[in-house]
């Protein structure tokens, strides 16, 4: 090396750039660097750095790295990609990524692993699972996976194996709003933020928990179209900063403000009476109940001034129907989630914004859209079904109480795996097969999950890294990342039908496999191969398009295909454009809309503001009602969590580029509270309660209520395999109690804590 001034500078800087870690068996580092090969031409695909799954366009650059940009064909995504999406390549060739099957050789969680071949992994799994099945029944094995994409393949394996116990992460994240929508509308609804003129938001932090098309839509509505945004959130988040008005609402009292908005809409005669008369069942009982929920009452509960609730409600009604109350996403603020999410939906129903621009609407998939058009505008996708699947007599472990019936087909109550394992409620579990899920972080009461995983006979984990949960597995199966996988075509219909597809960009790195292949090969070993009659992913894709190779090629080439014109049934202009385009379209109503065609999959066929079905499932809950909840002791502070734009929950803390951006989560404390506790900014602190105790650092900021502390979730992993994340920051799941909310089955993300300076 030439020794000049520039060389000297390089030497001086090298110390800070280096990253030293012990080589982990099965990691890319252990296997030695393999070259990067793949498509030098852009391939349209789908991101998987979070569950939004944005359409992307990616290519291998000079055999060294991967360029990942948004797919411009998907208009509402605008060709954009967030920090996590842009860092996907950093996960792909991270030296700490696991690329070889592993077998535990120490105690569970001890971190001692040995590399094995796939055949051996399958043989060990099949032997253990079949032994459990023979001794205790197939139902004593639970199967869980992050929902979406390939989770269906794992759940198909579960059914072939004979277990009804399949779980997604739903009850730890979105189930609250999904279950409430099922009860009120009979199914999920979408929000048209980009056309909204007035948006009321209860802590749905779309500017940190980025959902690309919604985030873009809301910003566009705010900045280009003059929409007003009102945010109720205990913390000064980015969405609170971007709001026109921010109210630091007391944690867990959102339902009170939502009900007071409904009260004001009805009592001040601001609601859409014609809409209610035509589409709503159970209005009278609801109106009777909300009579008591005055803004003054809500102020006493929530700290939001009554006059502001009243004024905001009037402004909201004035913008109707092009206004919306956002029903949120990660929804477990309190155990009263069901009432809260229903109250948020009710505030939308009352202004009649359903199927109106800027309000709520139903997805228009091809079959529905084509019926309206009177012609085949968009192709429909076939769903492969396998005949002669084994019948399963055993009940799911979460089928102990009918009040949770709406959740059984939407992911189930994930945390019942703990009760079934530790207390044999309703029966004993013996095995757990998990894929891309990290309950140690995302569920609650970490200690109880450790206890559960120590007690089970056999655990399999399939993932990209050895997550905190996978660290307790007996066998670890390394999955190919999304950049190395082909998958089924996905329906992404919004106001009109759309499809997109994930495609391989990079040749498989190391000895990894896509999980659809892993579960198929495992099924062969288990003796259930006959239930997996497809050869490969292309077989499945061709089945979806009914062997229409041209269609499949189009979807693959463009990566995103949409059909027809946007349609909202009660928007006259949109319906006119639609009927002008399709001469055989269904006849319109007298007012030029499809209003009379709007129907709901509820027992009454109407929007059920009050529900007999819910009353039967959960006596006392037919009508939306406020119930006081106690989430902390008097001498504790509220502890709340949220998302940050550079990480996805607990999934990305070890990705090099993202770890470099943020690897710690300081605890937000108000200056007054910090002063009382003698805590200065940056001080080491202990945060603790009856569930657990964590050490971290204080961020003293006025951006939080004095009675509340906040931390971004996902940090503080405790297993040594996640070298960049372990021991950094506060582990939120270790502080949250194991509680299941009524009806929604949600676990709880708000609790009480004490803080002490270390």
């Amino acid at each position, binding site marked *: 090396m030439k020794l*000049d001034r520039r060389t000297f500078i390089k030497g001086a800087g090298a110390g800070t750039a280096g990253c030293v870690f012990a080589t982990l068996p099965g990691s890319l580092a252990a296997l030695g660097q393999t070259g990067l090969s793949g498509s030098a031409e852009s391939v349209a695909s789908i991101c998987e750095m979070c569950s939004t799954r944005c359409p992307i366009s990616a290519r291998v650059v000079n055999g060294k790295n991967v360029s990942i940009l948004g797919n411009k064909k998907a208009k509402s995504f605008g060709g954009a990609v967030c*920090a996590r999406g842009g860092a996907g390549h950093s996960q792909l060739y991270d030296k700490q990524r696991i690329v070889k099957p592993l077998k535990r050789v120490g105690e569970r969680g001890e971190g001692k692993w040995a590399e094995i071949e796939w055949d051996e992994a399958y043989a060990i799994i099949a032997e253990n699972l079949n032994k459990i099945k023979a001794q205790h029944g197939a139902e004593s094995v639970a199967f869980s996976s992050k929902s979406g994409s390939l989770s269906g393949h794992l759940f198909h394996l579960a059914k072939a194996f004979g277990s009804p116990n399949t779980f997604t992460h739903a009850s730890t994240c979105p189930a609250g709003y999904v279950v409430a929508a099922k009860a009120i509308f009979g199914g999920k609804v979408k929000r048209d933020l980009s056309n909204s003129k007035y948006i009321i938001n209860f802590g749905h932090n779309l500017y940190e928990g980025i959902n690309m098309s919604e985030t873009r839509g809301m910003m566009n509505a705010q900045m280009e179209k003059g929409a007003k945004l009102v945010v109720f959130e205990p913390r000064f988040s980015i969405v609170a900063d971007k709001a026109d008005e921010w109210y630091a609402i007391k944690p867990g009292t959102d339902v009170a403000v939502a009900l007071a908005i409904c009260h004001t809409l009805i009592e001040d005669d601001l609601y859409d009476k014609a809409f209610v008369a035509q589409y709503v069942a159970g209005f009278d009982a609801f109106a009777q109940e909300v009579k008591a929920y005055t803004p003054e009452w809500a102020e006493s509960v929530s700290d939001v001034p009554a006059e502001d609730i009243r004024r905001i409600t009037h402004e909201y009604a004035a913008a109707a129907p092009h206004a919306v109350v956002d029903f949120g996403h990660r929804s477990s603020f309190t155990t009263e989630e069901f009432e809260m999410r229903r109250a948020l939906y009710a505030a939308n129903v009352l202004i009649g914004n359903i199927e109106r621009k800027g309000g709520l609407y139903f997805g228009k998939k091809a079959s529905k859209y084509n019926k309206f058009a009177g012609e085949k505008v968009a192709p429909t996708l076939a769903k492969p079904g396998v005949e002669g699947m084994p019948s399963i007599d055993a009940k799911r472990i979460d089928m102990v109480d009918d009040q949770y019936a709406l959740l059984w087909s939407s992911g189930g109550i994930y945390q019942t795996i703990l009760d079934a394992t530790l207390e044999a409620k309703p029966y004993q579990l013996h095995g757990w097969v998990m894929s891309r899920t990290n309950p140690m972080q995302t569920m609650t009461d970490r200690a109880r999950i450790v206890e559960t995983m120590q007690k089970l006979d056999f655990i399999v984990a399939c993932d990209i890294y050895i997550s905190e949960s996978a660290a307790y597995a007996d066998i670890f199966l390394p999955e190919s990342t999304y950049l190395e996988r082909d998958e089924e075509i996905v329906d992404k219909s919004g106001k009109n039908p759309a499809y997109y597809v994930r495609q391989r960009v990079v040749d498989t790195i190391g000895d990894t496999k896509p999980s659809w292949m892993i579960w198929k090969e495992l099924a062969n070993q288990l003796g259930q191969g006959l239930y997996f009659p497809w050869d490969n992913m292309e077989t499945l894709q061709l089945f979806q398009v009914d062997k229409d190779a041209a269609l499949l090629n189009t979807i693959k080439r463009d990566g995103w295909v949409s059909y027809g014109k946007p349609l909202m049934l009660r928007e006259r202009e949109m319906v006119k454009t639609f009927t002008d385009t399709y001469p055989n379209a269904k006849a319109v109503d007298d007012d030029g809309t499809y209003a009379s065609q709007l129907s709901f999959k509820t027992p009454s066929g109407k929007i059920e503001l009050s529900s007999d079905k819910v009353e039967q499932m959960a006596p006392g809950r037919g009508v939306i009602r406020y119930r006081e909840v106690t989430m902390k002791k008097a001498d504790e502070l509220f502890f709340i969590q949220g998302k940050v734009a550079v990480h996805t929950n607990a999934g990305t803390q070890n990705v090099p580029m993202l770890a470099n951006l943020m690897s710690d989560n300081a605890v937000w404390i108000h200056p007054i509270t910090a002063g009382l506790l003698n805590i200065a900014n940056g001080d080491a602190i202990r945060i603790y309660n009856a569930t657990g105790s964590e050490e971290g650092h204080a961020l003293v900021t006025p951006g939080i209520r004095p009675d509340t502390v906040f931390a971004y979730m996902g940090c503080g992993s405790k297993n040594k395999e996640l070298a960049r994340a372990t021991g950094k920051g506060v582990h939120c799941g270790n502080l949250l109690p194991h509680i299941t909310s009524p009806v929604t089955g949600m676990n709880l993300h708000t609790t009480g804590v004490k803080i002490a300076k270390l």
Partner: protein
Amino acid sequence: MTKRYVLVHDENKCIGCQACNVACRSENNVPESVTRLQVRIEGPYGNFPHLHFKYNRVSCEQCENAPCVKVCPTGAAYVNADGIVSINENKCVGCLYCVAACPYKVRFINPETRVPDKCDFCKETRLARGEDPACVSVCPTQALVFGDANDLNSEVRKVLDTKPHYQQKVNLGTEPRVYRIPSRKGGIKA
């Protein structure tokens, strides 16, 4: 000078998500220990409940009157015909004068090439292909507008002509070509 490339950062639309930061790092192979571009979320400023954050883009300001160019003893630091402050690696002797002279603290020594480095609007890669810089193309909320300010029909010209904007440290006479649309909340901290 036929072209005058400028960048506008709208602090109202920016959410500090670091998509630009990551895209820049990926596009330009920026080593882990250094950075060409960050958006710093500063604050919150103000008094409860009237708080606000500042979204501060930190990257080369592409000064018309660039101190880094003035102090360079070999001419390695120069302003290209398109207005982009550039670096000729072959002429660089690594004296670090430019790093010290930059009033915005956005020049650094690239630990791999051993040459001063900074944002160049992706001129060798994306700009050469007729594409927007990486940060502009990925921005989730369209907070960045890039273009030739000499082109009266350009989007960037329109934005500069119609929206209030400011530049940082104008008192130094550097005439930055990165413009900022101030947040509608709070004051301007240039």
